[in-house]
């Protein structure tokens, strides 16, 4: 297995996974505890509009998609921050609209779109050093965001009304969380693709939530889970010649089921003993 370390593409994939795990752990934990999974799904699919725009303009996909996602997620964030009724319908509209825009823009783009599938399903083994640099910068930004607003994030996530009374700008925090989600989603497009992105932002975080007592603990544990799932999936895809993104998600999914079943059996046993 060590021979894998001789391959540059494998090492690049590991490097990007290590840094992406930081961004995803921070964004994913905030998405899960704030019950924004559907919202993150909308941001992910709206990001396809950015992919389409990049193809249409014949520009690099990652920066264009990043800029597009930041703008669209800000709009979603500001619009949904104070709304309470029918918010899911509005999110659904953003979800479909971004995806449709991407498809139409790609339709208008002349020529053969060979690597389009890689944005839908990821291409972890084809990351460049520029991609890695971008993820490093974004992971530093995520850490700074977390450190700067940690107390506000805890308060906002637990009780928004009380956060408002304590002077926290809830619209700004809500929007910043969604922008951070958009940023991590754009990174994940390279790793697992638009279609599978939600699993990467929810499975490690969901597994971590019950095992820790603080948001910081949840983020750190999510980071460990993400790295483990990422590297295991990568090795699996190398040996079984499967798509890397889907392999990572399958490994995460299987672990999720195993862990939940194991916990289920434990609970069952303790219930029996109690009776």
């Amino acid at each position, binding site marked *: 297995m060590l021979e894998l370390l001789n391959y540059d593409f494998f090492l690049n994939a590991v490097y990007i996974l290590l840094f992406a795990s930081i961004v995803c752990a921070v964004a994913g934990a905030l998405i899960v*505890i704030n019950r924004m999974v559907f919202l993150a799904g909308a941001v992910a699919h709206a990001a396809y509009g950015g992919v389409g725009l990049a193809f249409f303009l014949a520009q690099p996909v990652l920066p264009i998609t990043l800029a597009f996602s930041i703008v669209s997620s800000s709009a979603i964030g500001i619009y949904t921050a104070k709304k309470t009724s029918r918010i899911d319908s509005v999110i659904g509209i953003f979800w479909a609209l971004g995806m449709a825009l991407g498809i139409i823009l790609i339709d208008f783009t002349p020529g053969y779109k060979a690597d389009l599938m890689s944005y839908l399903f990821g291409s972890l083994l084809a990351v460049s050093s520029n991609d890695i640099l971008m993820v490093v910068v974004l992971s530093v930004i995520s850490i700074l965001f977390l450190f700067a607003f940690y107390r506000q994030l805890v308060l906002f996530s637990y009780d928004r009304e009380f956060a408002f*009374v304590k*002077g926290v700008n809830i619209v700004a925090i809500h929007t910043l969380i969604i922008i951070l989600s958009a940023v991590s989603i754009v990174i994940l497009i390279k790793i697992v693709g638009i279609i599978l992105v939600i699993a990467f932002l929810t499975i490690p975080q969901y597994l971590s939530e019950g095992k820790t*007592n603080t948001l910081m603990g949840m983020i750190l544990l999510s980071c460990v889970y993400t790295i483990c799932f990422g590297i295991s999936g990568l090795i699996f895809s190398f040996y079984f010649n499967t798509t890397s993104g889907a392999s990572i998600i399958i490994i995460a999914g299987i672990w999720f089921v195993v862990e939940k079943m194991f916990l289920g059996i434990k609970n069952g046993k303790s219930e029996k003993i109690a009776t």
Partner: protein
Amino acid sequence: MNEEIVSVSGVYFSYNGDFVLENVNLKVKEKDFLMIVGPNGGGKTTLVKMLLGILKPAKGEVKVFGTSPENVLDKIGYVPQKMNNVNDMPLTVLECVLTGLKSGFFKIRYTKNEIKKAEYVLSRVEMDKFKDKKMSELSGGQVQRVYLARALISSPELLILDEPTSNIDPYGSFCFFTTLEEINREKTIIMVTHNLNLLATKINSVACVNKYLLYNDKPELTKEMMEIMYGIHDEHYCSMGAYVAEEIKHLTKCEGENCCHYKGRI
């Protein structure tokens, strides 16, 4: 003479054009313990949200400590009504209380002084032994006590509670009110509640809100208030609260200083 803490003058408020509050006037003085009652949809929570600066009146003026509420939020402690914000988020009782302090930037760890303060307010509401428990593991009454500690940690001068005992059984409510009575020696309290049990024993004034506001500077519901709330005129019901409170004391066989003073009851 006690200082005026809250002044609501000629306030109107509407949701989508339908007025839920009309010409509301209210004055609350220092160390008052005001109970706000009224039917569902009568505008109680709307009034509380205006006192907190969350909502702005369509017409009229709301002043707290002589200025707009948002300028003095650090002087106000707030205990919210809803229980649905108790989620599975990893948060200990101690950290929940600490969130009541000013947030600040680039602050993750809490100082020893902050932790000491949190432990002190938790002991005041008799929840100190639960400080390392997760919020999601607490009962409804325990959560309300933690919220009270969270409101107290910033040493507010005014405490606003929105239906704090809506999820607690009658005896638990009685204990909660006993704690509030102690706190009222130092702080002004405004509390929205449906719980009339302790009407005659703990509070010193009542406001009944149902679009309009009726105020009584005594701890009694007037005939007009009863009519607004229940459509009845019988004066007997006005003293019902005091009767129920006595019944609870009798049934639980605990009276005086020791009453409610064992930890983790609610």
